């Protein structure tokens, strides 16, 4: 295991956390770029594994950063990565709760929401593409990704069953 540069990681994740409009999946591509491509602390497959395990565990989706930090630098990495991702948005939320709570429909608020919404969606789709690139090594896994998309769009199935089905398909050697 490589020893990650924790102060640099903390600063980078803290900056990213303030861009996570619509959730952590918006900043996933840049986390992957930073950890895998720029610093080579993990391989693309390891990153995709960690994200998948994070999705399978209970709790908010963002908690996969704990696992990411743990994988990079043990307990210290887990604590630093988690705090860097959660603290800046919380501070901002508390500040804005004071200022904004009385008129959430103010024109500027609406313009910001409506302007940033499409960017958040573009970033989320970019995350999906990057994860698929790492995860889909064969036409069978690509088909599994496509099947997941279809089921998610057509049904109200809890995603955990799909992840479990993916694990079973993998173990049975279908992939």
């Amino acid at each position, binding site marked *: 295991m490589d020893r990650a540069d924790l102060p640099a990681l903390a600063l980078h994740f803290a900056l990213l956390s*303030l861009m996570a409009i619509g959730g952590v999946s918006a900043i996933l591509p840049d986390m992957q770029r930073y950890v895998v491509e720029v610093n080579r602390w993990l391989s693309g497959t390891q990153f995709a594994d960690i994200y998948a395990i994070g999705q399978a565990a209970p709790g908010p989706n963002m908690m996969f950063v704990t696992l990411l930090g743990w994988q990079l630098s043990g307990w210290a990495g887990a604590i630093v990565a988690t705090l860097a991702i*959660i603290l800046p948005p919380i501070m901002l939320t508390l500040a804005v709760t004071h200022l904004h709570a009385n008129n959430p429909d103010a024109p500027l608020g609406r313009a*910001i929401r*409506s302007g940033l919404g499409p960017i958040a969606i573009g970033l989320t789709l970019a995350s999906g593409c990057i994860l698929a690139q*790492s995860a889909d090594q064969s036409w069978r896994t690509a088909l599994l990704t496509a099947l997941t998309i279809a089921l998610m769009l057509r049904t109200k199935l809890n995603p955990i069953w799909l992840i479990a089905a993916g694990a079973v398909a993998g173990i049975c050697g279908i992939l």
Partner: protein
Amino acid sequence: MSSSHPPNENDSDSARDPVTPRIGPLELFLAFSQLALSGFGGVLPWAHRTLVERKGWLTQREFVDTLAMGQLLPGPNIGNMAVMIGYRFAGYAGAAAAFAGLVGGPFLIMIAAGILYRNYGALPLVQQALSGMSAVAAGLVLATGLKMTASLKRNWRPWLFLALSLAGVGALRWPLLAVVGGLAPFAIAAAWGEKN
């Protein structure tokens, strides 16, 4: 807002203050721990079930308003909601308690998962399971993005900014800070111009 304005006809803060239940930090911590640990595959449905249906701490309308605020702010929606709800019932201690409940249990579970991954992640069977799980996880993220496009207006403006951010970050692999920093002012200005 000037004090001479009448309160909004839909329940404003001052109007619902008398009926706001008193909920302490410990109760908030326990409730959010419970809903976080029930939340396989997403916590939001469990938050709704616990806070609105079972405990009745929030009305339907309050839950939706809090969610909308949480989505506007950066960071995980559910985390922002925990802070806002905790703060409303018990001030800063409540916000801290609700958030600690939300992340405490999952944090320990992730550490346990990390230990397992480090020790057994290289086993062929585990690798096979993970390859299936990560193919599904990629599909889940793509499906979430596609579902969200249903909320977009049918004109060029949102789709242009969606395409630019997808291309910049997904295809060109430019740094997110540069892409969002460059696009956000234009995106907000375009949305503002559309409104007026």
